[in-house]
């Protein structure tokens, strides 16, 4: 098939062709970058939490009067919750996993804030904290009941001699050799021995400490008058047990109030919401852009076919087969799509570069660009298929009839 008649036909409706090429270019740039961002967001949502969060809930308690002693109240509340039917395990903590509620700090491998440093989220808890969080030991041991400390009245902070760390925190502090048995120091130079290492789970988020760098601290929380009852229930019972516990606890001790009570699903949902909503929005808008672009291609080819009926008839009359007519229109469309895709590649790279500098996104992965090009070429040819077929059905007699 000769390309010359195709090009000269194309030049007859330049503006229309340029417009469709532009649409294709924008569609490609959006598609490629949107797909890339959506991929990252989905990956972020699917990051393991290390927690059986579907079957967990937390109730946050606060007491503020001078006669309120948080550690005792925490022990009472936890004792009640542990006695409830359907509760697998419960522990007081100072941090709600996957939420911003809690505290964090920095550990050093040498005193005087020297050596390797690692930010971590502090999970004050007792000997049942590990089982409640579902954290499994990979080395060392759990706290013993006798090792659980509690601050005295009016005391804000209390040093602990031992901690249990997650694998991520262990690696951050001691990348070369094992962390078990090592001594680490806090900002106040107080030494702590790592007595256990557990599998990673997410601690406090949003306040600077990396999500999986968590340490369990053997202390009953409550220094600020606030503590969390963290509860692990039998499958599917988190919500119902939470409601019962809430009812009881609201009335059992008038010196404190319930600040929050949520299944951990709630916090996981909040954690994901930005990523999830961005992904949804990108998918919706990108699909719409693709759809509109297809309609644009379809419209242009239809228009070309309908204004060139006579010429098609002539082509057929002088010997072109139906297949040749289809090829003619598809080739014409292919030229438009190809030029659009070329501009689109530049545009996509430009947008990708801009996103990476302006919004700290990683650089665009080239495989996404390749896939985007393939998809647009395929979709572009498909959109032109039906009008091209219709062109082929123009009978050769049209050429003679309308003269």
């Amino acid at each position, binding site marked *: 098939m000769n390309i010359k008649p195709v090009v000269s036909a194309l030049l007859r409706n330049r*503006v*229309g062709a340029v*417009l*469709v090429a532009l*649409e294709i270019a*924008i569609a490609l*740039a*959006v598609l490629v970058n*949107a797909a890339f*961002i959506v991929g990252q967001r989905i990956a972020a949502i699917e990051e393991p939490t290390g927690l059986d969060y579907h079957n967990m809930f937390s109730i946050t308690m*606060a*007491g*503020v*009067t*001078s*006669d309120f002693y948080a550690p005792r109240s925490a022990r009472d509340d936890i004792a009640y919750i542990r006695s409830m039917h359907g509760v697998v395990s419960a522990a007081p903590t100072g941090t709600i996993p996957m939420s*911003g509620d809690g505290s964090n700090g920095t550990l050093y491998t040498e005193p005087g*804030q020297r050596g390797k440093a690692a930010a971590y989220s502090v999970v004050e808890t007792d000997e049942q904290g590990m089982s409640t969080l579902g954290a499994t030991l990979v080395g060392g041991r759990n706290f013993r009941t006798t090792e659980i400390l509690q601050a005295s009245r*009016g005391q*804000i*902070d*209390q*040093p602990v001699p031992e901690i249990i760390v997650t694998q991520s925190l262990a690696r951050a502090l001691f990348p070369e050799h094992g962390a078990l048995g090592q001594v680490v120091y806090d*900002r*106040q130079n107080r030494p702590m021995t790592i007595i256990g290492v557990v599998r990673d789970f997410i601690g406090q988020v949003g306040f*600077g400490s990396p999500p999986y760098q968590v340490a369990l601290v053997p202390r009953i929380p409550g*220094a*600020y*008058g*606030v503590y969390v009852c963290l509860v692990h229930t039998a499958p599917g019972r988190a919500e119902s047990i939470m409601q019962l516990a809430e009812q009881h606890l609201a*009335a059992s001790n*008038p*010196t*404190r*109030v*319930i600040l929050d009570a949520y299944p951990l699903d*709630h916090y996981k*949902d*909040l954690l994901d*919401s*930005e990523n999830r*909503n*961005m992904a*949804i*929005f*990108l998918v919706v*808008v990108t699909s*719409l*852009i693709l759809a*509109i*672009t297809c*309609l*644009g291609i379809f*419209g*242009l080819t239809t*228009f070309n076919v*309908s*204004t060139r009926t006579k010429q098609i008839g002539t082509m057929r009359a002088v010997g072109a087969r139906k297949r040749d007519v289809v090829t003619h229109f598809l080739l014409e469309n292919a030229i438009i799509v190809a030029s659009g895709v070329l501009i689109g590649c530049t545009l996509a790279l430009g947008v990708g570069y801009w996103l990476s500098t*302006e*919004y700290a996104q990683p650089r665009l992965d080239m495989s996404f660009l390749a896939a985007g090009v393939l998809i647009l070429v395929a979709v572009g040819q498909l959109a032109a298929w039906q009008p091209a077929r219709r062109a082929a059905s123009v009978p050769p007699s049209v050429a003679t009839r309308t003269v």
Partner: protein
Amino acid sequence: MLAYYFRLAVKSFRRTPGLTALMVCAIALGIGTCVVTLTVYHAMSGNPIWWKNNVLYAVTMDSWDPSPNDAYDPDHPELAPPQLTYRDAEYLYQSTIPRRKVIMTQLIGMLSGVPGKSVPIQAPTRATTRDFFSMFDVPFQFGGAWDSAADSGPQPVMVLSKRENEKLFGGANSVGQTILWNAHRFRIVGVLADWRPLPRFYDLTTHSPWSNPDDVYVPFQWGPTLKQLPGGNSSCWGSNAVNTYEDFIGSECVWIEMWVELATPQAREQMQAYMDSYWATQHKAGRFARPLNNHLTNVSGWLKVNGVVTGDSRILLRLAFAFLTVCLINTVGILLAKFLRAAPTSGLRRALGASRREIFVQHLAEVAAISLAGAALGLALGVAGLGAVRALYANSDGYSQLAHFDPLGIAWALGLAALSTLAAGLYPAWTVGRLPPSLYLKSR
């Protein structure tokens, strides 16, 4: 004449209903998307107290850890902490340079002794000074702010939000009533009217910027008087152990938000000089080991450094415009095709005496009709889209507030739509008007 043009337009739509529907739908989708993103973006980037933007300043001093690896915010090491230490806040609060000033923190509040409520109720409390209400133009429904004697006392007086007053007293005027706040008897002196600054600019440290403002307000000194630790954010550094409340308020922990109202640029300079000279004396005494980094930041600057408008929403805004562009290019293409196909009719009209201008205006009328239909449908789509966004964010602390029908944002989107569609119609209408009539008359 215009009526005639519209009749012609309707005739033209009847001839090609599919193409017309396609154009209307494309415009509607573009506009709908823009309505949703512009509304959210507009709400998100709003300044809830724009009329005092260059009068109100957040006060920050860089008292943070000098070691280079321990910036307060590792992503923005150039910023001072958003809060102050107790001693710095106390010192700066003594200044008489600002017309108004406020130091504040968040406390956990427990309300009891309310008639008809047996179980204590938790209420997020702002411990603040009296200028809070006048500085931030907080409206009162009943009563008013406490006086300055209550600040220094501190006296047991409180202000309730409208929401809290409805919860506790069914919305009745509760001024003069007393209830227990953290087991101490407080007298209610004021009840706020509706007040929902979006974002919650005055304290962006803990909650979502879109969450409700606090429900109870008490004089700032109640925190230290009752030795009650802050319920919001507090950040500490340094190697001194913090074991007691006294340790805490003497420490380098930052936990107090401070704002000042400076009516003139001179006052602003004076305040800056006041802070800098305080910094210098403290620096000599061994504190403030970081380089001088004191700031008075106005409201819009404060919202910016605190990253209230997320990167995502900015990306989405641009995406919406890219989408609208595609829809418009599509419309230009279809209009061009449609007008060219009907060119012989235009040629006939030209031959019968219509001027180029008239042909142009006639086609523009057709474009206007399409853009109007597209805008109407787009608005409906946008409202539905906002509903969907609200549903998506139902769980997120106050964020769904942003997706409310906002007349200004929607006026923006519609104006944009009408303008851009008309602009899209200019070229095709002009092309058709320019065609020589003889060509088409001949080919008939």
